[in-house]
């Protein structure tokens, strides 16, 4: 009898997991479709990084010969990783803002009233952000290739960068989701954008840390965005190495653990407050 109950409860658990998984997939699809159907949300996170890449290449093209600058054939080689992370950061703010909009317009509470997976609401949103981040990485990499950029890591390097792009999107979207769940206001999430922008500028996104000095260098050294960028950059300008791959994958995962924990806690608080 105990064995029968155990088999039944395992089957029920599996069934619950399957339903939870299906709901999470449905939520992910919804968040990706929302981006597809509202191009106005997507365009800035695609256009602005490309604009800055084009601008940087023309403005700072001669800087590649400066002492301390990594050995690259073109400034584009250097700027690709910064361009990708910039796009992913902008996209992640949108993702957090969309979750906050769900709270503002009541959709989030309808999901709460339905017998749906609580975790699926968060994971679905983050999975959607990851898909978009991976797409942005592939899009920027392929689009800049005809303009003289080369990726030393080859196709496998691009694949690892795409995975890294997806992980970075989850890592940053986790913070944005935490802010959205905490405040329930899309305006508040958008208000984080200047902070993201400041962090981006005080990192190695636009210029290498080796050419910085003083306080700026120290800030860039401690800024996690520098480390998010540099793993991907190493794959692009130096090729595949275990160190570069580990940096490109493990740094986003480490940040993801922190941000996901914060988002889960904010979700639990919002559910408890309901």
């Amino acid at each position, binding site marked *: 009898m105990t064995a029968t109950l155990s088999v039944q409860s395992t089957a029920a658990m599996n069934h619950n997991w399957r339903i939870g998984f299906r709901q999470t997939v449905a939520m992910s699809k919804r968040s990706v479709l929302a981006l597809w159907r509202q191009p106005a949300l997507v365009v800035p996170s695609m256009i602005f990084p490309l604009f800055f890449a084009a601008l940087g290449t*023309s*403005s700072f093209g001669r800087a590649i010969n400066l002492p301390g*600058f990594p050995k690259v054939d073109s400034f584009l080689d250097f700027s690709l990783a910064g361009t990708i992370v910039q796009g992913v950061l902008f996209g992640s703010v949108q993702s957090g803002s969309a979750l906050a909009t769900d709270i503002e317009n009541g959709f989030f509470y309808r999901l709460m009233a339905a017998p749906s997976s609580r975790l699926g609401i968060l994971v679905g949103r983050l999975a959607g952000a990851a898909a978009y981040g991976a797409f942005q990485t592939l899009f920027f990499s392929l689009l800049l290739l005809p303009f003289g950029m080369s990726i030393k890591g080859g196709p496998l390097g691009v694949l690892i960068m795409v995975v890294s792009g997806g992980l970075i999107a989850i890592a940053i979207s986790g913070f944005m989701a935490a802010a959205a769940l905490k405040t329930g206001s899309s305006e508040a999430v958008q208000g984080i954008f200047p902070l993201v922008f400041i962090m981006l500028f005080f990192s190695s996104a636009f210029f290498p840390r080796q050419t910085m000095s003083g306080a700026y260098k120290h800030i860039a050294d401690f800024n996690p965005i520098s480390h998010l960028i540099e793993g991907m950059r190493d794959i692009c300008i130096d090729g595949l190495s275990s160190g570069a791959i580990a940096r490109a994958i493990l740094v986003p995962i480490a940040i993801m653990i922190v941000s996901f924990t914060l988002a889960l806690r904010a979700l639990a608080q919002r559910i408890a407050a309901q």
Partner: protein
Amino acid sequence: MSTTSPSEFAGTTMRSASALSTRALRNTRRMPSTFLPTLAMPIFQSIAFAGTFFAITKVPGFPTDRSINWYMPLAVCMGAAFGGVGLGFSAIKDMENGFFDRLRMAPTPRRSLIIGPLISCYIRTLVVVTVVLLVSIGFGARPTSGVVGLAMLYIAALGLSTVSAGWGLGIAFRFRDMRGAAIMQLTLFLTMFLSSAQTPLNVMTGWLHTVARYNPATNILRLSRQGFLGDVTWDGVWGGLVALVGLSVLTLWFARRGLDSLDR
């Protein structure tokens, strides 16, 4: 039937404009959140650009070895320009809540609806330029040609705020809702960055060099940097002055036509 003399008309214009500028400045005091980003962004830009792109000053031909001397005038000009388009946002808000209709019904000269906010914009620009300048000096900026050089920075900032205010108001009067806000900001952002914003023409390569050469913003930025890259020279000044006067006339005319179109 009584007629209004030109001097009476000018007096009425200035009285109305003064009341409108006082209102705009009171709004700034009551809602500092509308003004603080305009002040904070240039400070951030000046410091962040100078630090991030510090090494670019080592490229042969770069006109200064202090990166903040190059980037601070850009930050000031961006602040002045965004402060100017801020008038467009205020006008849109006034149109959406109906206050602007009441202003239009009042027996005041139409031009005061442009001149009034413009005066308040000048006062805010003076504050922005002074604060950004002082903070940047704290971070290592050093004027190279005294008061005349500093005057060039103020002239460039005030001129640019006129241009962007005319542009912002013109767009606001045509769109009449917040759809116009994105156009105001985006066009300004592109115009400023597709110039010698980040590096001088002789350091640039490729397509940007061609675009920046013909972009009037390059001349305006050259004017603003006169006091930080050596001596003030007429060669470095006149192009900026011509660009500012020409663009101010065009954008203020654009704003006035837009205002008139509200009555049609």
